[in-house]
């Protein structure tokens, strides 16, 4: 990113001040193409699993791309769910890249065959992010599910062998993987990929595990120092501007871009202000009404987000200028006031706010989790959502009392999901 200013005296506003009042089109648009997913990651922002039957059709997706081309949205960040499980996924990618809309998509690697890898490597308008949340199978699979580490490594291997150079390794930083940052970097380097670290947000299923998985204060400092050491060689998607209060600002815009420079289109065409806040509170409209541009330009929610923010309790903080009170989504989903400190405020004000008794966490407005998900390790004494499966015909008959749900569970894990 370069800022080019010919005459500072005539532009007293900083660039971020302009961004706060909104742009003609988003800079960074996230598009979740489907809620369907082959995995059930414990921290999934969009609580994905099952496909929504109202999903945008191929033609509707192409109409969105036509509009993005007209609005000069240079690229879209496609995710999900697992976007590649849509049968028209490659068609949508090709349509976008032949209409001046670059594609950066995130995948767990499930559909990256050698043939697909070769095809992707040849398309100069495509960037790929492979998600990995542990530098070892043990750490990764506890979050993303059994077999997911091998899936990701296989995809990295195939893409890199096919000559794909625009490759990223995308890691959500958690309490269990902060100690592996150097190992993540080594994996990325091995495949010629760029490392991208982002913040664990308490959205979707992430709200269930945030308490146990979000980095401790000491780990936040460790992460911050690691990021400062690696500078612009490591991407962060501007995730960590709340850490700026630990010292110098990190590279990036350092601003909450919700509704100003970023937004999200979900699989059914609903537009949300922020990629981390798929909740009716942040719903700006639907592309099915009058198109994406109309929502971006005319949504009342976006107008509100582009108006000057008060800063509330954080206004008097010496670091307000760089931290801006942190992440709106993180506050919302932990039940904190939006004009107060971030739950992970490095000065500890978030912890104080979290400890207050009157905090009410919002109910999720959507949940597409697999109803038959294998039970995941969750803290506390929650009931374990085990589902008994019917005996497969090939299995020898057993009496009801011999059928152990746990045995079935272990077997299905070994099945290499």
């Amino acid at each position: 990113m370069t800022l080019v200013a010919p005459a500072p005296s005539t532009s007293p506003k900083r660039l971020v001040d302009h961004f706060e009042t909104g742009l003609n089109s988003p800079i960074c648009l996230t598009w979740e193409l489907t809620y369907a997913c082959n995995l059930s990651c414990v921290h999934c922002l969009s609580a994905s699993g099952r496909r929504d039957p109202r999903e945008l059709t191929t033609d509707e997706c192409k109409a969105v791309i036509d509009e993005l081309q007209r609005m000069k949205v240079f690229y879209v960040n496609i995710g999900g769910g697992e976007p590649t499980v849509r049968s028209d996924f490659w068609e949508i990618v090709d349509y976008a890249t032949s209409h001046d809309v670059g594609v950066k998509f995130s995948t767990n690697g499930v559909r990256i065959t050698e043939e697909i890898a070769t095809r992707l490597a040849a398309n100069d308008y495509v960037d790929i992010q492979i998600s990995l949340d542990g530098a070892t199978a043990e750490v990764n699979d506890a979050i993303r599910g059994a077999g997911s580490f091998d899936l990701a490594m296989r995809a990295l291997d195939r893409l890199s062998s096919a000559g794909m150079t625009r490759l990223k390794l995308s890691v959500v930083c958690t309490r269990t993987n902060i100690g592996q940052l150097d190992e993540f970097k080594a994996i990325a380097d091995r495949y010629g990929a760029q490392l991208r670290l982002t913040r664990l947000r308490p959205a979707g299923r992430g709200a269930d595990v945030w308490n146990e998985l979000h980095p401790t204060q000491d780990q936040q400092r460790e992460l911050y120092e690691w990021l400062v050491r690696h500078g612009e060689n490591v991407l962060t998607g501007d995730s960590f501007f709340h850490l700026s209060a630990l010292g110098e600002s990190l590279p990036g815009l350092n601003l909450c871009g919700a509704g100003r420079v970023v937004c999200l289109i979900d699989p059914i065409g609903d537009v949300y202000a922020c990629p981390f806040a798929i909740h009716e509170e942040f719903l700006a409209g639907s592309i099915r009404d009058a198109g994406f541009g109309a929502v971006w330009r005319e949504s009342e929610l976006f107008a509100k987000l582009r108006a000057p923010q008060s800063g509330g309790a954080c206004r008097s903080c010496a670091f307000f200028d760089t931290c801006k009170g942190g992440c709106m989504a993180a506050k919302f989903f932990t039940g904190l006031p939006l004009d107060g400190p971030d739950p992970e405020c490095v000065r500890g004000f978030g912890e104080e706010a979290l400890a207050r008794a009157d905090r009410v966490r919002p109910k999720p407005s959507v949940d597409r989790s697999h109803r038959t998900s294998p039970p995941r390790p969750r803290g506390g004494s929650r009931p374990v959502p085990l589902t008994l499966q019917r005996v497969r015909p090939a299995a020898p008959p057993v009496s009801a009392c011999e059928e152990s749900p746990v045995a079935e569970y272990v077997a299905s894990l070994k099945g290499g999901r």
Partner: protein
Amino acid sequence: MSELTLESSLRLHPRVSVRPEPFGALLYHFGTRQLSFLKSPQLLAVVEACGTEPTVADALRVARVAESEFPLYLRALQTLRASHMLVEEAA
């Protein structure tokens, strides 16, 4: 890279897309994946004029830049050339 002068001839890189914005413009280079922000509408006018005018000096005049500000704009154009947003054409 040679020093940029008023006699240089600049063109937008063929893989760069320009999007006007209230503050000026956003430039995106599809090859390098870099974004640049032009922080004034007048700089956008200069960049656009570079595409039609034979020299930088002509572009600055077409965009109504005061001569006293030429050095500032030369520096801005130099930055855009260094990031390959603009490319120099042989005279």
